[in-house]
């Protein structure tokens, strides 16, 4: 099995790896029993709803780590609002990584779901706090 150079580059130099201690939204998806789990932290500007910071922590294979790194880069580089961020799909992640082996597609799905889960968490907290 071969990973693209882009996957290896992100695996070896992951972007936005770490935690945001006072995150506005946290998404936790996957299951270590199945081999991958992703935690995504976001910091959102309450007025503009732009995602100002995003970080990840991932337990998983090379593709899972590279997908996490890529999805955070897609958001952070573009200064996306949460609505725009919700339009990001696993296909975008795969394209940006110059492809993933077929058995690794689920890793990109996890990245999409991790991001969505963090945004949902943000929305829930926002509603709760008025």
């Amino acid at each position, binding site marked *: 099995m071969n990973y693209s150079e882009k996957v290896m580059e992100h*695996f*070896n130099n992951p972007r936005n790896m770490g935690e945001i201690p006072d995150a506005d939204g946290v998404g936790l998806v996957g299951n*270590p*029993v*199945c081999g991958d789990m992703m935690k995504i932290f976001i910091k959102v500007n309450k007025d503009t709803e732009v995602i100002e910071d995003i970080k990840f*922590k991932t*337990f998983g294979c090379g*593709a899972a780590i590279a997908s996490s790194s890529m999805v955070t880069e897609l958001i952070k580089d573009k200064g996306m609002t949460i609505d725009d961020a919700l339009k990001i799909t696993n296909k975008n992640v795969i394209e940006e990584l110059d492809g993933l082996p077929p058995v690794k597609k689920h890793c990109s799905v996890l990245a999409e779901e991790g991001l969505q889960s963090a945004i949902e968490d943000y929305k829930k907290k926002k509603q709760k706090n008025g």
Partner: protein
Amino acid sequence: MSKRIYLDHSSTTYILDEVYDEMIKYLKTFFGNPSSFHSFGREVRKTVEESRERVADVISAEPREIYFTGGGTEADNTAIKGIAYANQSKGNHIITSKIEHHAVLHTCEYLEKKGFRITYLPVDKYGTIDIDALRDTITDKTILISIMHVNNEVGTIQPIEEIGKIAREHNIYFHTDAIQSFGKLPIDVNKMNIDLLSASSHKIYGPKGSGALYIRKGVRIEPLIHGGHHEMNKRAGTENVPGIIGFGKASEIAKKDMENNAYKGIGELRDYLQKGITEKIADVFVNGHPEKRIPVILNVCFKYIEGESIILKLDGKGIAASSGSACTSGDLEPSHVLFAMGVDTALAQGTVRFSLGKKNTKEEMDEVLSVLPGLIENLREMSPFSAEFEFPREAGPRVKHKH
């Protein structure tokens, strides 16, 4: 990149120079078909039969009890299906274990669909089969016991002499998949009451695509492959002559190595690596039997991280090992062997197998020990899990290992 370090010998080995030198002659100069009566055929037949003697010698068998195959998987298939189909009138029950190689497990699953009943014996936390459970599951319908000699993932050595004795007492055929032990551990098919044994060439510095099945004389099997009268009607098809010659030479060298106690030194290197890893890195668990384990295998779980990512990082440093992790196999299930041994499923995802060979050195182990702690730390920093955020207990769907 500096010199690469190969620690994946249980997957495959390189070919020794002496083996290569023998083989190359049979690719070019001696090209005859060993079944031919002319001199081109006869000169090849002679060497094929010498190779048969060399393979037989490793396990104290007679040359005519050795049948060459296209590798270990074919030997396993031939043994199990061959005995099953030849003994249908006697019974339909086969006993194997939960930790066999897929070459055995998937063959047994196939036979289940054909109406055979299979018992998959459990193992203890070290990966040793339960002898009492074996005794208890034998019925008057049992026709075959197939238990591996050494497990390919964790290296645990099974009590095959005891199993052979039980099989003989009950008049049941005993097959052992000896692919990891052939040429590395002493085997005597007579003392151990083994009726069928699978061996492979490319695990002992011979070529790939070459293996053998030992079948005790008088034991009848249904052949898997039909055709000409090759291999005494048990395996049709013109012989893979260079493969057989290479296997023969590799067997001869392996026997000498065993006599010279070569595996003692490899075992000391393995223990040195194990000691270094467990001392330098926290939350590490060694799998397999502490003593009854083949000296070449070290199987380790690194908690909180996943195996493939460790393999990739090691590969980046020129170090080759393998992982039994779900992601590599693509089926999202971690090793069936560790599962049977009761290793926590999340922990099992972080497994790495180092398997050593004849040319590994202490310097290479030192190199691994100098880079590994940093790699593990780096991956653990990336992981959401730690002692503060533990793996969830039995979270989500259970893995669905069949046995």
